[in-house]
């Protein structure tokens, strides 16, 4: 079955074919996990795994309603984006009610950053501070290389709204980072030719 397209696999999944759906999960779980990781505020790895699993469970439930003309990746991103927005809403509601739940524990156990650059902590904080839609837009564009048209489809907004989201997200990141680190270009290190001045 591996030669089947995503759309064919999704159609088969809609008819209850678990094997076809398993192949889709294997094909796309890394993409969904990386999107969920970047779109959620410092959750533990287990919490992000849970969220990504929920995305696939939702996809399985909705498989019978999948429109063959849609792209599976776009459709999965839409489910994932909604899951991330809902999570954020729940956490905000919890903050308002000042109730504690498992999320507190998850946040308390947030793992050490795996970023390559030590300055990336500031970048991650700045990305974390973005509103959810700006954040999703920048993640889809920058890390998943999606076109404005595809991002518009995922977020269910117009292309001009995507353009505006990305601009505002970049401006906010620029302002945030300008307060914490030097955003001037790195001086280029010239190769040592051994020549004396």
């Amino acid at each position, binding site marked *: 079955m591996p030669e089947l397209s995503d759309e064919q696999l999704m159609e088969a999944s809609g008819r209850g074919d678990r094997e076809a759906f398993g192949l889709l999960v294997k094909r796309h779980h890394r993409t969904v996990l990386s999107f969920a990781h970047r779109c959620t505020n410092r959750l533990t790895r287990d919490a992000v795994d849970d969220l990504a699993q929920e995305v696939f469970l939702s996809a399985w439930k909705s498989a019978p309603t999948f429109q063959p003309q849609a792209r599976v990746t776009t459709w999965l991103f839409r489910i994932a984006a909604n899951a991330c927005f809902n999570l954020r809403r729940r956490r905000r509601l919890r903050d308002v009610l000042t109730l504690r739940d498992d999320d507190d524990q998850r946040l308390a156990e947030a793992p050490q950053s795996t970023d390559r650059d030590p300055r990336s902590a500031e970048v991650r904080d700045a990305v974390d501070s973005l509103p959810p839609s700006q954040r999703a837009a920048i993640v889809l564009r920058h*890390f998943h290389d999606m076109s404005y048209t595809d991002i518009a489809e995922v977020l269910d907004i117009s292309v001009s709204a995507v*353009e505006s989201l990305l601009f505002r997200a*970049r401006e906010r990141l620029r302002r945030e980072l300008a307060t914490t680190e030097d955003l001037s270009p790195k001086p280029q290190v010239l190769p040592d030719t051994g020549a004396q001045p």
Partner: protein
Amino acid sequence: MRCEHAKQMISRRIDGELDSDDSRGLHAHLAGCADCRAVATQLAIVDDRLDALVVPEAPADFSRKVSARLTDQSAYERIIRHPLAWFPHATAAGLAFAAGVLLVYASNGVRETQTFASAASDGHVADYLQVGFDESIDETLFQLIAPAEELP
């Protein structure tokens, strides 16, 4: 071109979504606006910094976990969507439980009867009943349960 519009174009240029006309217009604006040139440089640096944000490797057993949750969910939905599906299982379980209870009662009843009969035949019904405050009770009870031909 206003600076705000130029900044939007810088963002589109980073994404490779700027057409050639707009690109020329932006170039002309940047040539005469130091502020926007600085912003363009900073936005390019921000874009580079984003590249450093890596995500952890996907867990090896992710697909298996999704499959397991699908199985659990399917079983749950079978019960929710078809409430009568569990009826034969529940009936069987109920009958088995009732049979077990009856068995326990029956075996306890037999044991009690045997113990009481044994106590009565030995003349120690009061011990059996753990009363013991009046020894005459043994005699009275013994007479009550003794066969008619044995009565005086």
